[in-house]
């Protein structure tokens, strides 16, 4: 049997009505083991204007590199709407390394799915961590042309040690790398 997947449609500007019950900017509570990080950034359009109606969803492994399953205390899922200034902020733990294709290991990363008014289907991207030696051998980063890899790697905040800055640029010269999955 072979069916065709249902077409995507935009999440629209009013998704908060149906989705905000599961807003979760604290992906890992205090009971979850791991190195605490906060990630903050802004999401901007092709003119550099802030996008105040984006829905950002995060999926990540635990600190041991295991993806949570039903019943685990840690769900590994975050849902964060962008604010009026296009800003978003969430806290979590740094995930461990996960198996990659063909026996490789991936560098620690978050998977992100972003929808908004004006996006007829979501974009998917990844966020990697700064100063992480494993980035050099990550099989997915390796598929990205070197000049664009930095759009996927967060920066450490100069003022706050546990804060990482990572912006999402939807369009243009400095456009964030999005993946065809």
């Amino acid at each position: 049997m072979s069916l065709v997947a249902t077409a995507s449609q935009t999440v629209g500007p009013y998704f908060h009505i149906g989705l905000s019950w599961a807003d979760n900017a604290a992906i890992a509570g205090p009971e979850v083991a791991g190195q605490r990080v906060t990630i903050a950034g802004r999401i901007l359009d092709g003119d550099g204007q802030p996008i105040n109606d984006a829905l950002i969803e995060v999926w990540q492994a635990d600190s041991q590199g295991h993806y949570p399953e039903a019943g685990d205390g840690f769900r590994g899922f975050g849902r964060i709407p962008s604010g009026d200034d296009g800003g978003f902020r969430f806290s979590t733990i740094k995930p461990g390394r996960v198996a990659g294709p063909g026996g490789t290991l991936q560098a620690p990363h978050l998977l992100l799915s972003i929808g908004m008014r004006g996006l007829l289907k979501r974009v998917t991207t990844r966020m990697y961590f700064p100063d992480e030696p494993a980035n050099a051998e990550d099989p997915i980063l390796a598929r990205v042309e070197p000049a664009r890899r930095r759009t996927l790697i967060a920066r450490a905040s100069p003022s706050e040690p546990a804060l990482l800055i990572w912006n999402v640029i939807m369009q243009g010269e400095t456009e964030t790398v999005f993946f065809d999955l």
Partner: protein
Amino acid sequence: MIDITIPQIPPQQTLALYPPHGETLWGLLHSRTAVGPERPFLMFGETCRSWGAFRDLALGMATILAERGIGPADRVAVMAANSDLFVAVFFALGRLGAILVPVNPEFSAAEAGAILDHAEVAAVLCTLETEAVARLAAGEHPWIARLEELSEPSSFPSPAAIGQPDDTCLIMYTSGTTGFPKGVMHRQASFVMAGEGFVERMRLQADDRLLCVLPLFHINALFYSLGGAVAAGASLVLAARFSASGFWPLAARWRATQVNIIAAIGTILARRPRREFVPGHGLVKVYGAPVTPEIAAIFTTDFAIPHIIEGYGMTEIPGVCNQPFDGPHQPGSMGRAARHPDPSRRFAELRVVDEDGRDLPDGATGELLARTPIVMQGYYRDPEQTAAAFRDGWFATGDLVRRDGDGFYFFVARKKDIIRRRGENISGAELDRVIGSHPGVAEAAAIAVPSDLGEDEILVAVVARPGVPLHPRDIRDWCAAHLSPPKRPRFLVLVAELPHTPTHRVAKFRLKQEPGLLGEAIDLDTLPAEDKPAPGLLGGRSMTDPTPYRRLVPGTQPDYLHRPYASTVKRAPSRALVLAPHTLSELSGPVFGPDEVGSGESDLTAGHAGAPLGERLIIAGRVVDETGRPVRNTLIEVWQANAAGRYRHKNDGHDAPLDPNFTGCGRMLTDDEGGYRFQTIRPGAYPWRNHPNAWRPAHIHFSLFGPSFLTRLVTQMYFPGDPLLPLDPIFNCTADPAARDRLISVFDIGLTQPDHALGFRFDIVLRGREATPMEDRP
């Protein structure tokens, strides 16, 4: 609904309605006009001409042509799109015993000039659009005039009707799939007989209206549509040219009953948005040369046309076989040898022969030879090619066919379109069809190119469907799935367009002459690493890696940039997405349990002091994956506007009232069968600022997770029959009309609760995994 029980007068009786015609053009026109000069004959633009008015027009044109010295055997080129004047001048020339030389109005001066020179034309008749090119092409000698100049009054005496049955009436230069066009000569009697043959073929009736969207410079339009209409004393609805969006409105406007199509037109109409379709059009008969069974099925079911008749002919031998109108039908066949309405008349005879001209038994593939009274007189000024076209009086078609035990013929390939590879004879046409059926491909043409091994390699030139990203690997994988190894093309060239003959066939001979084609080609056997699945991924995965998901079918999902939806312009990614494998990260996903989803949350009408305003609805359906397996226990979230079209959201500025008893959000988990169900009220349509007077059709937003990050889906459900759907840029963002239509829920009386609420069904398909090696086994 269309009444398919049209009265059927047998073809022989239809022809017997009219006085004898003497097998000439003018005789035929005179015969059909005599019975009722006031009856409608030719509809073009906003004008409908009666038989009498048309005859007078043609006579007037003959008068001016005669005044200009045009007489028997003079060649007169007509370089024009279809028009009533074009049709009339054909009969005017026939009256004079002169010869029509139609020239494609889109030809360049060089292309047209080659034909005008070869035919040594006495005059070139053109239109405002073609006049400049015609003047360049014609040089100094011939008389050049616009067709409308021939419809002016003249004081010159009307010339006598002197055209004879054996006088040449047409030199039609075949677009040729071989090289330089050849001028196919036909007699006046050929036109008359071809028209009568078409009466038999399509059971034409005097009150039929034949819609002609094909060009009159091709034999199909001239000999079948025009010839058939005149022979039956029926009407002709003439389009200047084929327009996909205008096809159904034109058919409906004039209540056309019959139309001739070619494969390309069938495919285009089948793929067009159904909103362009006009239900209740009057078409009941389609002649296709050819139509695939798939296209025929769409015409029968979607377009409700009961008679789809396939046939076959060439410019040299028009209409030599066809599916019998009253059956039996053999899908995919060219039909049986054509017959004349008068069964005592000798008509088309067919043979299938081997290389040495020996007759082959049923089932064997060989070249089709044809003998028919409508055969061409020869190629103009080309005795060598004429001689080469015949074998002992039989015309050699150059087409490989086979015949079954019931006398049905099946097209196998053009002889010249056979590619020899690894000892196999491979039909280029088959590859065109298979590769062309990839949803991301608009058109494909396979040709042989020389290989290092001395045999042919296959190169396929592909035109992607607009707005659909197409990777070389998509073609490679499609071929691997649908073609045996020797048939899989080695080389791929992505082109903006393919060269065409004027009848919309791919001009492969021109493709083969394209310099540098092979240089631009991508070698699919050694795709660059970026495009080739890494070891352990996708196609070449190892047993230890998890099974990836299928790639989404191109065209069935929206593109990011969709200009009619203005917000996409600054938000759509502008750089190419990076193709990534499916790792554990993508193949896993968050899980939501029953404790997080209260049972009352599937009733959007509950939870407030009173009931919300609006029409109560039950919405239910199943969530399955692409392999048809139910997606169990997965979270569905829904949200919507209230009955007045207002969202309970701080940014919604629409001045429709809020409903204190309606929030507009709900959620639920699917059951073990993937089923879900919730109660709500019908949302209202609402205005938005996308464009002037923009309104969103009523819709409910759906958000689903499925088992992994890859299956996450946000979509919208629409309601059947909503008049705003054709106008909505969001609904219409997906290229594939079938994919769009699947977003429209279906009214379900079984789901409808008596005295309570209407039921609508909306099934959802999430992405599914590739077949695992286990599942490949029988």
